[in-house]
């Protein structure tokens, strides 16, 4: 329901840590001075007596703002996101609509500090706070609390993180480590894509989008009430992209197709308990220069939320996940490119428990979980794993307490302790301080430790990356990339601080600064030896190690301004820099710490007469010093016609000013396509 719940309890329901501590504060304040009739400005937003005289004029809010206000008496601030001691952004469906986003990954451009790259048709790379290689290794992405992370690649396949816009509740983005609540791999950020409760998606909706880039998307959903306390929705959708200009060839036979289907049901068991179940299936196929790879994923998730359980709120979540990937070809660079087909199957079974309660001035959250992963990769001539099939356990416990040290000062301290087969026991602590002098501004600071666990590939793989034929005077040469069974976790010690200034409902400003110190970072040692064969080969093998280190630091700002009822502006800017030590030049690896020096965007939305709306967003990406790539600008515009609440028609252009540009920062090292200007039409009908 609001960000703070996500951050503290890890789900979209349950009352937040900070809201509860706000109540504890209110009691602490009122028990003494209330008889004397004293109240401070921090306590005026809550409490029955104060509400009639609170200065807030809510008629000043936009419809979307009203929709999100919390009426829980436990909130000190009707918008609890304000109190969170972390760099957090929330993207609402209206933000995605106005930006004309056709996918969740694309909409992340609206968050400062996030670098979004469209690498292939429907394949995105998202980097948070510096570094954006192919994998987004340090970013934890969740859909309704379920982790989207491929353990073989150690990265995120964004097609799995899609929720169609009509069914999306919001996207919560935490920039910075979230390891204490989310565990290893939440190193540079956590993104939680949250879908709507089935009670909020009743009725039918059909959406079709078609563009000149020959991208077509279609989605159908129908929701209904099954009985007096169960609601359900069912959906089906697909997308197809044909042709794109490749960096390596102009072959028009590049494209992407996907089909999805699934359901979600919510059952109200009692006044305090809700049960949710969800199933999602995705089947996708990508063709690059004639080679085809495919992916199928299916997941089933159940969640039980109880509001009055042993003095607090409890959530129990169980899910099972299956993914099957067949990669036709992965081009790993070099002069003579090699096909390394990867056939992988992955199964996950995960159980998680969270309990949140408060006593005295403490707001306490604790819990734990376990995940069993069964991953198998088929050995081929060019790619071999030590264990074709591996079962791994991941077990964790966490506890976090938020204490009100003084009426306006709160300290949060907590830790997660994780056990993984690959890295043993790992403590992941964090401590946060927030100072909230009044209802208009707050300051926060945090220090935390996070770990990026090694992927299966990094520990076991042996890949033949290139072969060069021999000649009269030299032997044939073979280039290899080898994992290391001792490859350990990359660590991040992070220091962050921020300031939030929300002087009115019409203007909000957020500022955050960070310094990340990475240790035990992925590096390579190269050895050379003679393989007698037959046939004899000279072998150059690069072996993974943890000898590099890196630092990234930066400043991020975002703002929203609503000058009048029919005009809204928003924007963000971030400046970041990264430095590395002992890092290879290989772009596939080094790109993890390459970052554009500036990222900014500014957007405007106008309500025009007769039910028309116009929005435009300008994005700027600065040059990437590490890769020596130039920056680029991108302009998206959109006109929307909404004659009635059930019909909507949009016309827009993405990348208006530029016929095409490349966004990928790994250059020729990996397949990528150029992003082209796209004229699109989108129609939506509710029934």
């Amino acid at each position, binding site marked *: *329901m609001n960000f703070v719940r996500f951050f503290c309890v890890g789900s979209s*329901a349950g*009352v937040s840590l900070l809201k*509860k501590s706000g*109540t*504890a504060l*209110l*009691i602490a304040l*009122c*028990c003494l001075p*209330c*008889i004397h009739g004293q109240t401070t400005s921090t306590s005026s937003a*809550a*409490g*029955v*007596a104060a*509400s*009639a005289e609170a200065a*807030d*004029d*809510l*008629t000043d*809010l936009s*419809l*979307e703002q*009203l*929709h*999100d*206000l*919390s*009426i*829980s*008496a*436990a909130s000190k601030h*009707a918008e609890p996101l304000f109190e969170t001691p972390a760099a957090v952004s929330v993207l609402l*469906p*209206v933000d995605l*609509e106005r930006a004309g986003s056709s996918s969740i990954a694309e909409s992340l451009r609206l968050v400062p500090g996030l670098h979004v790259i469209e690498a292939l048709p429907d394949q995105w790379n998202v980097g948070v706070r510096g570094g954006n290689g192919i994998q987004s290794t340090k970013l934890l992405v969740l859909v309704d609390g379920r982790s989207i992370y491929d353990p073989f690649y150690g990265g995120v396949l964004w097609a799995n993180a899609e929720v169609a816009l009509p069914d999306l509740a919001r996207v919560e983005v935490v920039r910075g480590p979230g390891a204490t609540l989310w565990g290893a791999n939440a190193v540079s950020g956590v993104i939680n894509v949250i879908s709507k*409760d089935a*009670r*909020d*998606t*009743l*009725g039918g909706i059909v959406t079709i989008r078609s563009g000149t880039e020959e991208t077509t998307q279609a989605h159908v959903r129908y929701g209904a009430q099954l009985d007096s306390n169960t609601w359900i929705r069912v959906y089906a959708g697909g997308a197809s992209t044909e042709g794109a200009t490749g960096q390596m060839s102009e072959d028009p036979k590049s494209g992407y197709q996907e089909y999805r289907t699934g359901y979600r049901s919510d059952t109200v068991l009692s006044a305090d308990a809700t049960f949710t179940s969800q199933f999602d299936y995705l089947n996708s196929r990508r063709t690059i220069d004639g080679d085809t790879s495919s992916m199928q994923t299916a997941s089933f998730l159940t969640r039980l939320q109880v*509001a*009055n359980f042993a003095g607090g709120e409890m959530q129990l979540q169980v899910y099972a996940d299956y993914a099957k990937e067949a990669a036709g070809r992965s081009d790993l660079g070099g002069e003579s490119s090699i096909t390394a087909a990867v056939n992988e199957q992955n199964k996950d079974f995960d159980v998680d428990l969270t309990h949140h309660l408060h006593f005295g001035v403490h707001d306490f959250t604790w819990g734990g979980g376990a995940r069993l992963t069964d991953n198998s990769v088929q050995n081929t001539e060019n790619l071999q794993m030590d264990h074709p099939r591996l079962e791994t356990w991941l077990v964790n416990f966490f506890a976090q307490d938020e204490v009100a040290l003084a009426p306006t000062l709160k300290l949060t301290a907590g830790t997660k302790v994780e056990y993984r087969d690959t890295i043993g026991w790992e403590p992941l602590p964090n401590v946060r301080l927030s100072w909230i002098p009044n209802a208009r501004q707050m300051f926060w600071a945090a220090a935390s430790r996070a770990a990026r666990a090694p992927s299966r590939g990094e520990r076991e793989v042996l890949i033949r990356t290139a072969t060069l034929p021999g000649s009269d005077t030299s032997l044939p040469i073979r280039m290899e990339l080898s994992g290391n069974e001792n490859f350990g976790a990359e660590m991040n010690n992070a220091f962050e601080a921020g300031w939030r200034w929300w002087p009115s409902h019409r203007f909000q400003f957020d500022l955050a600064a960070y310094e990340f110190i990475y240790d035990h970072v992925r590096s390579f040692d190269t050895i050379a030896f003679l393989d007698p064969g037959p046939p004899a080969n000279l072998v150059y093998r690069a072996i993974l190690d943890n000898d590099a280190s890196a630092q990234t630091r930066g400043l991020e700002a975002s703002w929203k301004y609503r000058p009048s*009822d029919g005009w809204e502006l928003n924007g963000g800017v971030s400046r970041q820099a990264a430095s590395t030590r002992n890092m290879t030049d290989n772009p596939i690896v080094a790109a993890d710490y390459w970052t554009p020096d500036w990222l900014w965007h500014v957007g405007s939305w106008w*309500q025009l007469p007769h*039910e028309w709306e116009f929005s435009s967003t300008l994005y700027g990406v600065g040059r990437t010093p590490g890769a020596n790539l130039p920056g680029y600008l991108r302009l998206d515009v959109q006109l929307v*016609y*909404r*004659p*009635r*609440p*059930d*019909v*909507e028609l949009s016309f827009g252009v993405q990348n208006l000013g530029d016929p095409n540009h490349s966004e990928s920062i790994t250059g020729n090292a990996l397949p990528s396509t150029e992003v082209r200007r796209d004229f699109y039409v989108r129609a939506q009908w*509710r029934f």
Partner: protein
Amino acid sequence: MNAFPTSSFAKARRTLSVLALLAALFSLSRGAANDVGLEYRIKAAYLYNFTKFIEWPPAPAAMSEAPFVLGVLDADGAAYNIIKESLRGKSGANGHPIVVRHLTGLDAEASACNQIFITRSSGLDGAQIRKWLDGQPIVVVGETTGFAEQGGVIGFVLRGDAVHCEINLAGAQRAGVKLSGRLASVARLVHETR
């Protein structure tokens, strides 16, 4: 009212009322109790927004300067007071000042309203309201469960601790009003059950 009662009975009563206040604050902390005052201020803000996002049939020329009348059908008057206070001095679309009236039933005074908010405490059911409406150009907004499905135009729904809206397009059509597409971003459409 004497602010400082001196009799022992009055002292005991004052102590009790202070304790009651503390108890009320404690009970706020325990469960998911909602701030009712804030709830009605949010609903008042929605009602204000509805005047801008709904188009009523054009009024006769003599009435073009008339204020916009919002009636609140409220048994005990608490909601009416909050809404009246929230909308004091506000104007709707085209600058018509908004006037908030307290209604006690679906009577002639109610027929003079452009928009009526029917609170939970009024105890009316959907069939009665629909029968009385009979094509009048009035937008009825309610907050009981299933209000929109029973024939009202807009219903408020509490989802968790936020106030959301449900819209019934058929009801809007009968009243002859046109709803703006913008409402789709905060409301979901429902179909009438009959």
